[in-house]
């Protein structure tokens, strides 16, 4: 009796959750979260969307360059034994491209935050920094605590 009740409640919960999520995410718009989370007006959304669409090609270009550089690094590692000067050079180039990519990304976040009302912009910036850079900081903290570096 109890098991049947729990099964009915659980089944209804899962089904309702799944159906609602599917319906609400059906739009497929990448910027839906911005619109909902920061209650942006249509005009603000238009500005943000323009920035987003301008940023995407640059982002894809950087990704392609990084992928190409990683392929060169892979080739250098395969060609030589150990960490040769060529490998170090390629590592540095990959790192430089990643840093440039990260800089572009942060710049984009700043531009988008300025297209929003001030309070929403601040919140957006804090959240994006937490979601992108924050992961790296956590990873670095974990690594430093494991190795005893402070």
């Amino acid at each position: 009796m109890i098991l049947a009740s729990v099964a009915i409640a659980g089944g209804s919960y899962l089904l309702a959750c799944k159906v609602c999520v599917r319906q609400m995410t059906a739009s497929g718009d990448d910027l839906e979260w911005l619109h909902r989370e920061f209650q942006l007006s249509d005009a603000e959304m238009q500005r943000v969307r323009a920035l987003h669409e301008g940023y995407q090609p640059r982002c894809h270009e950087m990704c392609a360059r990084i992928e190409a550089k990683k392929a060169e690094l892979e080739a250098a590692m395969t060609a030589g034994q150990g960490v040769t000067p060529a490998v170090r050079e390629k590592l540095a180039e990959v790192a430089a491209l990643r840093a440039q990519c990260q800089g572009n990304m942060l710049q984009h976040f700043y531009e988008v935050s300025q297209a929003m009302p001030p309070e929403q912009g601040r919140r957006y910036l804090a959240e994006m920094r937490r979601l992108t850079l924050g992961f790296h900081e956590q990873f670095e903290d974990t690594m430093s605590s494991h190795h005893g570096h402070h």
Partner: protein
Amino acid sequence: MSAIKPNNGSDDARLGELLRSARPQAELPPGFSNAVWRRIERANQPSHGRSLADSLDLLVGWLLRPRFALALAAVMMISGTIAGISNAGVNTNRIARDRYVASVNPPDLRP
């Protein structure tokens, strides 16, 4: 007709014995009649005199009636659905947020 014998008392007794032996009487378990009287007393007791176990027995018995079982199933279904819809909002927000982040955070920069 001449074969039918007149009714004899000893034949009745023998018939009775035969019938009883054909249907053996099962022995009642020990304390059976006491248990029956206790159940009768419990059923006649006022509600404040019942123990927790008796009250639970009564509640379960009541709930197991078809109309109440159906009502309970309906209540559980509605509660589960409402909880699912509320939680869907949270899940949807997280999915939408992750989709946006994935669109601006290149794979190479992700941990």
